[in-house]
């Protein structure tokens, strides 16, 4: 029995021991794995940080050079941008150096708290850089996003804008931010008349990190060009898997909110007369806006109360997410909002119709009719065109709503037709007395003038305008706002009318003029008469051109424009570099050095041969200066009898230049040079065949009847000329 108990105890102890041993082994292996991971992480981390530090250093050097170059050519904005990138790179270099030298080694030897304490002492800028570096690394590694939405924080930075709030996003997956432009961006937008002091903007951002697909981005971007022309889109950018565009922020309640407010004021029976007039006026505004879109070839495609913001009594249509060019060759999609989208559109889409084959503007009119229905009924049109209007509403307005929402073929054909009907209702003293037969579409008379003014005032008076601080604006502020908006509207109108002179922005003008100045300067420089001022003018022109490239006109084709903007700095640098090289190449000194080379291949010690009269003066000066022994007279020979008057004048100018350098010169038209010219003429025909002429010239030069120490021989020939055949090079210095 005892032995049995002993066996049992031993067995239990053995099993327990085995379990403990296995547990200890597993823990030991796990510890070993952890240790390996720890060592690898920090060793490889240190190596990686070191490599990144080197890379950041190289990039910093390149950026520093480009920054200096930008400063040199006066491209200040580009220099600022490069400077910011340089600062960022330097911070990255600093951080990676710290990680390589201290951060990872300290953590490797279990001194993480010390490293944490050190990092805690970094400034906010370095902390931000560090967070961004870690976020990027996590993103590249496909790991989880940083806690607290750090990735989101990184992705919500928009160059030129400061985020001040967010808006509720729609169904597209995009995020909406309210932002304020910085000074530079404001100047850019204000110069185009798109915003005024105090305006905010809305940034609609599609980020692949938030699950947005390329198709969505393409869909959003396809109407940017015309939307830009209409002043609806102020700016846009596409980079790093993120696409965003900027619109003016329209503060105010949506039509949905306003409708609820009006109905709660009016009671269950329906809207009061003044409310109805306001509704008609807002519909009129909406149609005016849609008319502009349609004229510009655009189809909004998502007209609904939530997308209509009432600002200063005016209905503003927002959300361009579904905006589509009317002539698009794309296949129609069913996108839109149920109850505010004509079911016929869905049927057409399912048949595979192309956008250009449907009358998109009529679908927008359906949306306007549905919006009017929603305002009148305080509900959505559940049964489309057959929805009953049970609330108080003039007969004529019911007719308009139904006509807008009826079958596609029988609907209003255009914005103007519907607007004409609404104007009659707006102009009526008693809209309830109007019959459908009184409407222009039914043969009634049209209304004259802007009939919505009164109603607009009513909406304005009853619409709370949210201020920045959230309180209602005072009357003075509202008047100031109104003035501002009038100015904005004028500036926009000015921009729409083809940018007349007063609207032309300096960069645009500079862009136009700078190449002309550069070309003129290059020609002038090539003429060699006033090289230094020409060179200076060329450099200034290049600087201006660089500045103009730094502010390119906004193009709204997303990818193209992004490429253009992305290459801006490089383009400026390349243009400036090429320009400087071109100017230096055209430098007359360089030309004279070529001529001197040719001269070096001539044989007679007295002779300098030059090709054209343009370089005679400077070539001779160069040759003369290179000859330390030359103190006596120079003879300039004009060997071309058929020289034109301007060329002759240049040759004379060369002689004048030589004299200005203190040389005793006998010019081609001076007394005593006639013999030399005669001698030269005899040689011209012999330059390629050594013979009599050559011998005569040599004799003439040997006898040196004019007592000159150098003969500058302007052949007037475009090709290199060796007057005296022979292969013995002349060493001027030895003379």
């Amino acid at each position, binding site marked *: 029995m005892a032995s049995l108990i002993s066996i049992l105890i031993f067995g239990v102890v053995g099993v327990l021991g085995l379990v403990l041993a296995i547990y200890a082994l597993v823990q030991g292996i796990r510890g070993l794995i952890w240790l390996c991971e720890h060592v690898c992480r920090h060793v490889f981390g240190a190596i990686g940080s070191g490599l990144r530090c080197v890379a950041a250093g190289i990039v910093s050097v390149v950026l520093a050079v480009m920054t200096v170059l930008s400063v040199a050519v006066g491209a200040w904005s580009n220099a600022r941008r490069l400077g910011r990138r340089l600062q960022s790179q330097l911070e990255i270099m600093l951080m990676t150096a710290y990680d390589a030298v201290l951060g990872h080694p300290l953590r490797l030897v279990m001194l993480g708290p010390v490293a944490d304490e050190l990092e805690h002492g970094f400034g906010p800028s370095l902390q931000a850089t560090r967070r961004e570096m870690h976020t990027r690394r996590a993103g590249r590694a496909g790991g989880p996003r940083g806690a607290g939405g750090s990735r989101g924080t990184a992705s919500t930075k928009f160059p030129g804008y400061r985020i001040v709030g967010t808006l509720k996003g729609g169904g597209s997956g995009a995020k909406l931010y309210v932002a304020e432009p910085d000074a530079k961006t404001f100047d850019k937008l204000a110069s185009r008349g798109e915003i005024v002091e105090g305006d905010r903007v809305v940034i609609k951002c599609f980020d692949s990190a938030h699950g947005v697909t390329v198709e969505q981005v393409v869909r959003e971007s396809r109407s940017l060009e015309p939307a830009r022309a209409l002043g609806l889109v102020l700016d846009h950018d596409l980079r790093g898997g993120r696409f965003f565009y900027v619109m003016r922020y329209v503060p105010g309640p949506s039509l949905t909110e306003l409708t609820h407010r009006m109905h709660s004021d009016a009671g269950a029976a329906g809207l009061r007369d003044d409310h109805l007039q306001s509704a008609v006026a807002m519909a009129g505004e909406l149609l005016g806006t849609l008319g502009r879109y349609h004229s510009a070839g655009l189809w909004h495609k998502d007209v609904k109360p939530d997308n209509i913001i009432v600002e200063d009594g005016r209905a503003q249509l927002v959300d361009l997410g579904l905006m589509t060019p009317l002539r698009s060759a794309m296949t129609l999609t*069913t996108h839109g909002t*149920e109850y505010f989208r004509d079911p016929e559109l*869905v049927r057409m889409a399912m*048949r595979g119709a192309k956008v250009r084959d449907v009358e998109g503007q009529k679908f927008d009119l359906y949306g306007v009719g549905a919006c009017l229905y929603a305002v009148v009924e305080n509900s959505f049109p559940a*049964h*489309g065109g*057959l929805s*009953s209007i049970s609330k108080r509403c003039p007969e004529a307005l019911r007719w308009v709503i139904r006509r807008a929402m009826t*079958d596609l073929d029988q609907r209003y054909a255009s914005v103007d037709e519907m607007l004409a009907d609404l104007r009659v209702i707006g102009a009526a003293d008693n809209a309830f007395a109007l019959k459908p037969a009184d409407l222009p579409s039914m043969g009634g008379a049209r209304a004259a003038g802007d009939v919505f003014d009164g109603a607009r005032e009513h909406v304005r008076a009853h619409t709370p305008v949210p201020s920045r601080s959230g309180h209602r604006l005072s009357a003075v502020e509202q008047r100031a706002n109104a003035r501002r908006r009038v100015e904005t509207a004028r500036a926009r109108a000015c921009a729409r009318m083809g940018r007349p002179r007063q609207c032309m922005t300096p960069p645009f003008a500079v862009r136009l003029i700078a190449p002309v100045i550069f070309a003129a300067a290059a020609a002038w420089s090539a003429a060699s008469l006033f090289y230094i001022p020409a060179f200076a003018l060329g450099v200034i022109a290049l600087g201006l051109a660089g500045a103009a490239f730094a502010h390119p006109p906004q193009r709204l084709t997303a990818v193209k424009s992004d490429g253009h903007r992305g290459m801006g700095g490089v383009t400026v640098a390349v243009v400036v570099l090429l320009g400087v090289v071109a100017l230096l190449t055209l430098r007359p000194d360089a030309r004279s050095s070529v001529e001197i080379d040719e001269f070096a291949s001539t044989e007679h010690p007295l002779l300098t041969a030059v090709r054209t009269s343009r370089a005679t003066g400077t070539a001779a000066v160069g040759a003369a200066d290179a000859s330390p022994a030359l103190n006596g007279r120079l003879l300039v020979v004009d060997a071309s009898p058929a020289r034109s008057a301007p060329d002759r004048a240049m040759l004379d100018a060369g002689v004048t230049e030589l004299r200005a350098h203190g040389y005793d010169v006998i010019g081609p038209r001076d007394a005593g040079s006639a013999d030399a010219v005669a001698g030269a003429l005899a040689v011209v025909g012999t330059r390629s065949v050594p013979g009599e002429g050559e011998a005569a010239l040599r004799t003439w030069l040997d006898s040196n009847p004019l007592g000159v120490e150098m003969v500058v021989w302007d052949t007037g020939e475009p090709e290199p000329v060796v007057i005296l055949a022979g292969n013995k090079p002349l060493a001027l210095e030895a003379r």
Partner: protein
Amino acid sequence: MLNNLTTGFVARLRDRDTAAWFELWETFGPVLEAQLAKWGRGRIGAETVRDLSQETLAALSTSIERYDPAKGARFSTWLLAIAKHTLGDEMDKRTALKRGGGQRGTSLDETWMGAAGGVQPDSAYERAVFEAKVLKALRLVERDCDFADFEVYRMRVLEGRSGRDVAEAIGTSEPTVSRRLARVRDTLRERLREVMLKFSFTQDEISEAERNGASWDPTKAADVLFDEAIGEIHRALAASAQR
């Protein structure tokens, strides 16, 4: 008892004809939404119900294979079964999005559906399906008729206004109003017949219009009675939309 229109339509549904599915959704979507909202009250929000779009319905066309109308089921019951699958699939999708959090897919026989009335159609549901058919016929008439003609019918019949009122409103005479009214009525009878035949599996469903005074056979229902019946149905529809 299936007629050619019905079998043709069901065949289109089985062939994954998205236009047919959209037509089904456009006609009966609101009825299904109301039923789904009733089932899901307290469990699924109005947004979820609204998200059950025609695309979702079309994508679920596989479920139609399991139902054979020839077995005697009513169209309304068949529709309800589709609705049930639609909701079940939607809930599955939503659960799948959250998968990893320990949630399982929704069973088609969730007890809460049964608790909310099960899949058996009640009289309110049957009435709603019938009204949806009449509305569909009216839609077709709106498309087929001249706008002014249909407006005359709308004002006179659907809104119950007098002939003189209507004539004054559109600036015409009462005889003209009567002529236009007759034109639209004739078209409506024809369209109502088509719709009832297309969306009915049983004789009982087909005769529903006649039982409600809206027979498409002019010898069986006088014009006035027909108009009254249509007007009443339309007002009921408007009242349900208000709710």
